[in-house]
């Protein structure tokens, strides 16, 4: 379902844009405004991060956003309500992004059922490798949701092929080592890595970590299907306010 949407959009566009927000940062009202601005600016899909107290794959900007959201009382239930609202109001697919404990504590199968009911299309859980994800994979399959798995530059080919067997929708290729929001070198090494990813799976490829400008997005055209802009929009909102989101996104592609 998600994959079909991505392929359909790709026929019209050189590359798709996926953005990322932390729910409840700085508030749920602001989150709604941000989603609205992003959709108007033409993003093709969005990650909604349910805040977690120990986001080990995230760098300082998203870490801070997680902590602020939690400090202002962001609850998991509220994130579901928010997801339901935006999924019914806007046409684009929305995904949950969060850490495994949020699903585990909620109950993995109930979590998937409620995701489906809220109109979400899939999930990215960066601390859940497929080996630990049997229950999650079952639940996502039952509810026809896409479990998005991750490739890293350190992933060997054989493992890439195994991961591709478990993933649906697309594969999220982490552009470099490290956490979110640090500088990425858009270089020959990245191209080589992305062609390894392309070899390993027929699923569409998204590339994230350090994507922050039109130049970066242009680099990814022809090498990937989706450019993921995460930390940079959070920085822009922090520095220039929500009004700056739309022009920033619009000029990326």
């Amino acid at each position, binding site marked *: 379902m998600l994959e079909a949407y991505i392929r359909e959009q790709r026929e019209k566009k050189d590359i798709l844009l996926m953005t990322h927000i932390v729910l409840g940062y700085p508030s749920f009202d602001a989150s709604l405004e941000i989603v609205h601005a992003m959709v108007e600016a033409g993003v093709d899909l969005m990650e909604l991060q349910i805040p*977690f*107290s*120990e*986001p*080990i*794959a995230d*760098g*300082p900007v998203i*870490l*801070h956003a997680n*902590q602020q959201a*939690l400090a202002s009382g962001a*609850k*998991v239930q509220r994130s579901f309500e928010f997801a339901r609202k935006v999924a019914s109001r806007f046409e684009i697919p929305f995904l949950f992004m969060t*850490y*495994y*404990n*949020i699903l*585990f*504590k*909620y109950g993995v199968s109930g979590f998937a059922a409620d995701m489906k009911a809220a109109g979400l299309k899939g999930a990215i859980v*960066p*601390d*859940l*490798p497929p*080996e*630990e994800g049997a229950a999650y994979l079952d639940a996502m399959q039952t509810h026809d949701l896409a479990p998005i*798995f*991750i*490739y*890293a*530059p*350190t*992933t*060997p080919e054989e*493992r890439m092929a195994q*991961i591709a067997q478990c993933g649906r929708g697309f594969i999220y290729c*982490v552009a470099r*080592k*490290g*956490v979110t929001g*640090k500088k990425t070198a858009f270089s020959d090494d990245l191209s080589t890595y992305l062609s390894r990813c392309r070899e390993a799976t027929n699923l569409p490829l998204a590339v994230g970590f350090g994507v922050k400008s039109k130049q970066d997005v242009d680099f990814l055209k022809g090498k990937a299907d989706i450019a993921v802009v995460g930390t940079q929009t959070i920085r822009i909102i922090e520095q220039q306010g929500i009004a700056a989101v739309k022009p920033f996104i619009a000029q990326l592609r």
Partner: protein
Amino acid sequence: MIERGYYDGFGGAFLPEVLVATFDELEQTFRAAKADEGFWQEYVRVMSTYSCRPTPLTFAENLTRHFGGARIYIKREDLNHTGAHKANNVMGQGLLVKRMGKSRVIAETGAGQHGVATATMAARFGFKCTIYMGEVDVQRQRPNVFWMERLGAEVVPVTEGTRILKDAINEAFRDWVTNMDTTHYVLGTACGPHPFPEMVTYFQSLIGQEAREQVLAETGRLPHRIYACVGGGSNAMGIFNAFLKDEVELVGVEAGGKGVTTGQHAARLASEDGSVGVAQGYKTFFLQDEDGQMMETHSVAAGLDYVGVSPILASLKQSGRVRFEAATDTEVVEALQLTIQKEGLIPALESAHGFVQAFKEAPQMSAENAIIINQSGRGDKDIFTVADAFNDPKWQAFIKAKAEAYHA
């Protein structure tokens, strides 16, 4: 992923993809070392020449007389180089780092003992070293920060989250996912993703192996009970491991803080507040809310002030093989005072948790029964906290004078 390391459903390896290859390398290196008889011999030789192994088992004659029950023995991990059992694990992992050909080590630290131990190992083996330490702990364990820096380590105060041990672990992981090619993360306790719980237990098991031989030589029989404090669980696993198959009651003592019903404690297994979750790469009992967000913990002992616990101990709790109790901050300071007065020993505030429970139970046992308390570390590092707890006026005057001297 080669292996995931489960203990009755606890443990696992919940890793970001970028670290999977690094853990596979670590797993392979550890397996190869374990299979190599010479490796363990090399490890024991390092610990007997660079540290103080075997550490003695001290008969606490005065405490035994004081309580009039069980014969109390104390395993003296405080006599290790840098003053705690942390040295064992650190030197062991240092040998693995050499095998992997890496040039830099990073570590988290709570009380600072693991940080200091890692910094000495790095100095000795010629590795670069960065230590992550919560800002709150930097404040309460200044002397250890001083030594880490003298030893050439960079100490990074962690200002995110609750600014204690768990936050230092998160920051160490963030460093590792960036620098894994050159860097090994020397995790300090029997927690975290596989193979850390197994590997740290393996290196610390030297404590129990020695204690078993020593108590048999001294008393001719196995002890009745063994007491150890439990933060992450490495000193407890270290002494318990050699007795798991024996008829010896094993007692883990967690940080009861201001009381296990106050919400201000770090008793994951001994209170009603802990529940199973997945964080920092492994599945165990955590102090978390109904959404799965980790809660703030509290203990007078920075080294026990941690939100999770060894998955091996979680499984031993579930099977009933280990009993878990909690000691409050107040009880800990009292037990420390008594031990100093009666035996001239200065246990760390962490270790004093084990003493509290042993002192509660010793009078109910007979002189036929020997018990062992694991004194995991020495307490002189805690001088600022202990002086505050004792409200020592001469110490306060000294600090004031010292501060004035710096002003001048």
